[in-house]
């Protein structure tokens, strides 16, 4: 226990010594800077992560053999109690060419390391999906809502939302088919064979959904705009595989935005049966396989990270058991593993930022140390007086510890207040700075976002506050200890 005089004297010192204001200012500035910089960075990262999370499914069973059958795997996966739904995905590379329009010659977009952009050439990562099952997985519907939104925020125009999922007829929905009249109009526009009367036109084209980043480059299309999908497939196993090329005509059925740039640039979604047929697994063939390369899995909601990891391990074992003997093990990837490249790059940057912020706090702690140390030196005589009138060494030390604590408390509280205020008004301030000084502290162009993402997490604010106070107490303990250990007689004689 400390004596009553310790907080009292500490408080009087703080009020009468302006130098402490400096320490309070230092801590305040540091806390403010850390909060603001980190909230911008966290806002940015959490936006990225939530975008990436939205683009991924709970678990993805991938690295399957090339002739894996969905029905066999589905039974194995859905037997698990935590699995709510599964959806087949068929991943293949191919090309997408708008019909009757001059294709861009291969334009080398520059030897940019991160941005070898193939979209202008029509290269696409074709993903065959089963729309009804994808809906059960979640995601697809939001992607289709978000796609036109992303474009509308940047460009003027009528970006119609995709009707693909509102189709009531299961067969048509499965083909992502657009209304027959749309196809009729598209055929007429493109000069393709069409019925003279719109009422007689029966739609033949499956739909294709394109990522908004690709649309950004190619331009917006009318409903059912015809595209040719070309892909080279292989039949047979390794060693005797034979290359075939297939093409199919599809109609533009809408734009999606998953939030993951790689997906929004590269991916083209089309009905899985269309892609299977192109790859030589025509459903009409008796020996055909309902081939998949990945199975997207939705888990029971509310599972913790450990439960998801356990479910992943269980699914891997189940799937491996269902695969033909001798197949290499599949991979069950959670959403982070599905986007490992990008997320690890982001994490590295975050680490660097946190290192810098730690240094900021360290220097701020120095300020507290310096002021308290000086206080002890200047108050040597007071230490003697306090001892003479009955203060125990511990309580005398506590005066200085409490002084440091109070400085940290005030600095942190002010820093938190200013930090919260400035985080809330960051975009306004950024705007104002730009309008008046042509200075953009946080260049939005860099983030490709409408406004500077800023997210002040209460937990992070609490961490900073507790960290700042703890650090202050640690550095204050040194002068406090020094004060407690002083010989009171020598202190009294001190001049």
């Amino acid at each position, binding site marked *: 226990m*400390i*004596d009553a005089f310790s907080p009292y*004297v500490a408080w009087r010192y703080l009020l009468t010594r302006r130098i402490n204001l400096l320490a309070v200012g230092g801590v305040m500035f540091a806390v403010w800077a850390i909060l603001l910089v980190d909230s911008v960075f966290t806002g940015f990262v959490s936006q990225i992560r939530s975008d990436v999370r939205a683009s991924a499914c709970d678990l993805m069973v991938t690295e399957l053999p090339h002739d894996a059958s969905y029905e066999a795997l589905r039974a194995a996966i859905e037997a698990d109690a935590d699995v709510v739904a599964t959806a087949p995905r068929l991943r293949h590379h191919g090309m997408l060419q708008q019909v009757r329009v001059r294709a861009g010659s291969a334009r080398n977009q520059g030897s940019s390391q991160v941005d070898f952009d193939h979209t202008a050439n029509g290269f696409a990562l074709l993903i065959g999906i089963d729309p009804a099952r994808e809906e059960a997985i979640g995601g697809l519907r939001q992607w289709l809502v978000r796609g036109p939104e992303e474009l509308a925020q940047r460009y003027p125009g009528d970006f119609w939302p995709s009707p693909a999922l509102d189709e009531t007829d299961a067969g048509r929905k499965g083909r992502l088919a657009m209304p027959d009249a749309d196809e009729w109009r598209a055929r007429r526009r493109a000069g393709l064979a069409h019925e003279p009367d719109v009422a007689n036109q029966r739609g033949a084209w499956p739909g294709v959904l394109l990522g908004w980043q690709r649309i950004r480059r190619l331009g917006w299309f009318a409903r059912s705009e015809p595209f040719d999908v070309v892909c080279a497939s292989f039949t047979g196993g390794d060693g005797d595989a034979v290359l075939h090329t297939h093409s199919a005509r599809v109609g533009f059925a809408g734009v999606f935005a998953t939030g993951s740039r790689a997906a929004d640039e590269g991916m083209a979604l089309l009905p899985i049966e269309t892609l299977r047929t192109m790859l030589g697994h025509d459903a009409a063939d008796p020996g055909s396989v309902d081939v998949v390369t990945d199975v997207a899995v939705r888990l029971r909601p509310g599972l913790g990270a450990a439960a998801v990891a356990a479910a992943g391990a269980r699914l891997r074992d189940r799937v491996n058991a269902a695969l033909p003997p001798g197949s290499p093990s599949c991979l069950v990837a959670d959403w982070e593993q599905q986007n490992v490249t990008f997320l690890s790059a982001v994490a590295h940057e975050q680490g660097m930022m946190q290192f810098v912020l730690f240094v900021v706090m360290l220097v701020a702690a120095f300020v507290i140390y310096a002021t308290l140390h000086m206080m002890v030196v200047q108050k040597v005589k007071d230490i003697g007086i306090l001892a*003479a*009138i*009955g203060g125990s060494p511990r309580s005398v030390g506590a005066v200085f510890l409490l002084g440091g604590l109070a400085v940290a408390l005030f600095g942190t509280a002010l820093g938190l207040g200013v930090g919260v205020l400035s985080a809330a008004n960051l975009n306004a301030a950024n705007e104002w700075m730009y309008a008046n000084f042509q200075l953009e502290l946080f260049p939005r162009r860099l983030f490709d976002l409408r406004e500077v993402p800023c997210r002040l997490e209460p937990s992070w604010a609490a961490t900073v506050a507790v960290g700042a106070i703890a650090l202050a107490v640690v550095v204050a303990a040194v002068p406090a200890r020094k004060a407690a250990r002083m010989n009171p007689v020598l202190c009294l004689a001190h001049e």
Partner: protein
Amino acid sequence: MNETALQAVAVHKRYRLGRQEIPVLRGVDLAVARGETVALLGASGAGKSTLLHVLGLLDAPSAGEIRFDGRRVDDLPVRERAALRHRHVGFVFQFYHLIPELTALQNVLLAQMMAISPLAYWRVRKQARADAEAMLERVGLQDRLRHRPTELSGGERQRVAIARALMASPQALLADEPTGNLDSHTAAGVCELLFDIQRQRGLALLLVTHDEGLARRCHRTVRMKDGVVER
């Protein structure tokens, strides 16, 4: 009258100065009874102040014993010694030793805050304040409560110091040349106050001084030389 409030038994005190050990007290025996006033005289460096510090538990003796009310106290844990220093003795110094940041009233209140937890003090704060005001009134400073030490004269400062020393109702008062820094007129006033209070409360008063006149007013005079009490 015959109850010893403070007692030093064969007290030695050595200071280390570099490699040398300098003996300051070399076997001092001294007892001050309750209600008794003792003047401690001696040349500079005779060890008077050191004896005072050791007797007040501000400094630990190298050898020997310190007894309060006949009970040995120098071997108690540091916290108890601090509490005893607060409860049993009061110091008055030549240079007043007031805390410059605090007003006269606050300096006196400070003595109330010793050996009491912040919470306990909070409950009695009104009473403590009233007591401190009464004490300052007692020493004649009722209209100087809000003044800082720098705004007070030497005599006034010493009165504040005396008020502070008396705040915890100690058994003994240890005064280290309380008038050494004052002009004779002011010094007389301070002495008067000191003896007055001593008589009123029946305190043991040990007074270090160079002033023979002042010494004569005490019951007893003890002379020190080279760290021992002269017989």
